[in-house]
């Protein structure tokens, strides 16, 4: 029995029907449009001059693109209550310190949980996996009480320290270390007299670059997008996302500036993802849960 094999780019394509390919392409195009057009619309809105924002019927496309809205956003920023640079500093400070702490503490714990053996290890990892099964809103109130006891309410600590203990990054790192750091390499380092900390930092960490890039991206995106926090009252400690929310809450008169703000805020995580995409996908290769 000889079956005619289809080829694509000189490789045999198994069991693929033309109809199936067409159907899949159609589905992807429709879904792609659903995902992409709103994103495109934000960018186009940000480029529209005032008269086009109020045109009837509203147009999807922009006729005379302008950067005026970004300029408006800038001037709106300059008459905010506290200097706008303060919001930018807060967000950058929180994002950088929170991410660094999560990376250091998380990857050290991931190393111990994946490569060392000690009583209670599996129990600890089990708890961490369970923590992925509920949202942080559940613990919000009790965490507030903890924060008050620590006198951390209305300080940077309230936002930064809990971010150190974020579990998704640690979970991904632990799984990735398990699959991509060979035990034999660690064992030979130990036989050479290396301490466990040295083995972790000098031998294991360079082998899991995609893992820590992923941790950085996840932690950074989360903190970058953090808005109003229930633990923060002072205007001087609030974030860029919160401040931009205040600007855009100015209503329809600020529609253009608001779209410009959204474009600025979304550009950062998207650029970060574009740069690190291949590393993140590589890390995800070991993200699976074993039962």
């Amino acid at each position: 029995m000889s079956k005619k094999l289809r080829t694509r780019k000189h490789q045999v394509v198994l069991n693929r029907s033309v109809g199936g390919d067409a159907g899949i392409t159609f589905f992807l195009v429709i879904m792609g449009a659903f995902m992409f057009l709103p994103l495109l619309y934000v960018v186009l809105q940000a480029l529209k001059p005032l008269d086009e924002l109020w045109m009837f019927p509203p147009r999807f496309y922009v006729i005379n693109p302008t950067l005026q809205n970004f300029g408006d956003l800038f001037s709106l920023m300059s008459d905010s209550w506290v200097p706008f640079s303060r919001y930018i500093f807060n967000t950058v400070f929180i994002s950088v310190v929170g991410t660094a702490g999560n990376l250091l503490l998380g990857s050290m714990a991931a190393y111990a949980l994946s490569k060392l053996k000690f009583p209670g290890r599996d129990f600890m990892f089990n708890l961490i996996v369970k923590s992925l099964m509920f949202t942080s809103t559940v613990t919000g109130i009790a965490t507030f009480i903890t924060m008050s006891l620590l006198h951390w309410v209305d300080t940077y600590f309230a936002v930064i320290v809990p971010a150190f203990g974020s579990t998704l990054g640690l979970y991904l790192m632990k799984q990735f270390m398990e699959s991509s750091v060979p035990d034999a390499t660690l064992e030979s380092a130990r036989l050479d007299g290396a301490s466990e900390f040295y083995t972790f930092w000098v031998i294991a960490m360079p082998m899991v670059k995609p893992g820590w890039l992923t941790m950085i991206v996840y932690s950074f995106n989360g903190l970058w997008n953090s808005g109003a926090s229930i633990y923060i009252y002072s205007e001087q400690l609030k974030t860029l996302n919160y401040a931009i929310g205040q600007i855009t809450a100015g209503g329809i008169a600020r529609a253009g500036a608001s779209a410009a703000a959204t474009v600025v805020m979304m550009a950062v995580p998207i650029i970060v993802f574009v740069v690190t995409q291949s590393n993140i996908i590589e890390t995800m290769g070991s993200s699976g849960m074993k039962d």
Partner: protein
Amino acid sequence: MSKKTAAATASGGEHAVSRKDLTRAQWVWKEMKTNKTGYFMVAPFMIIFLVFTVIPVILSIFLSFTSFNMLQPPKFLFLDNYIRLFLDDDIFITAIKNTLIFAAITGPTSYLLSLLVAWFINELSPRVRAIVTLIFYAPSIGGNVYLIWGTLFSSDAQGWVNGWLLNMGLINEPILWFFNANYVMPLCIVVALWTSLGTSFLSFIAGLQGIDKSYYEAAAVDGIKNRWQELWYVTLPVMKPMLMFGAVLAITGSFGFGGIVTALCGFPSVDYSAWTITHHLDDYGGQRWETGYASAIAVILFAMQLGANMLIQKLLSKVGQ
């Protein structure tokens, strides 16, 4: 795994003292001392994790049996908060109903969507696949970008959808999309789905990429006829760990839904039409400071999320067995 075998596995089996000479507690203590570096390395993370995740859960469960306003010491009520929630709080019943509807629709749909799209783009060239991945993933990381749906479905004639419907003569006056109880739920579900191709989507892409091509060739020889059979008999069983991980994220996300509704429909949404447990929790915990009552709400949300997750994990672990 029982504790005994856990301790035995942890031993590494290269110690001079025989396991039999020691009581279990002595053995564990010895193991703990020889492996103290492990504890040093997990300690900084675990302490923060305990203080900000584990202890708050326990504290919430305790507070849910009390009346507490953060000023006076908690007063023990036993089950009164729960009785009040289920028998005396109509809005909470609405919240449960809405949360279950959201979860039942957005959870499975986003999960299947992530899987289907990841599967469909799997055979594209790496460059095209990277671009398509970005397009589908971007809405989930773009911060507040979902607010654009508020502009598209704005309540005035300047909203893009209303503008076109008016212009084509299909309606005579603008529809109050996000402020009309009939449209709020469906629209919020659409927006939720728009932002839902996140981490599990990436995990599925990676899982599919990691499957050895020789499995498919062997399956073709064994008589697999089309790509659907290939998916069912080869791909899904191999990807099971990713499917379980993706399910956890999908379930947690779909039950914790609320932020998008607040941003687009206001707080509360019109006639509580999209009021979820998260909103009820915010209302009592963040605005009314009825901390004991709010803790009971948090405990119910916690139980629902954990329960749904454990149930689905159990079901998924049976796939391919």
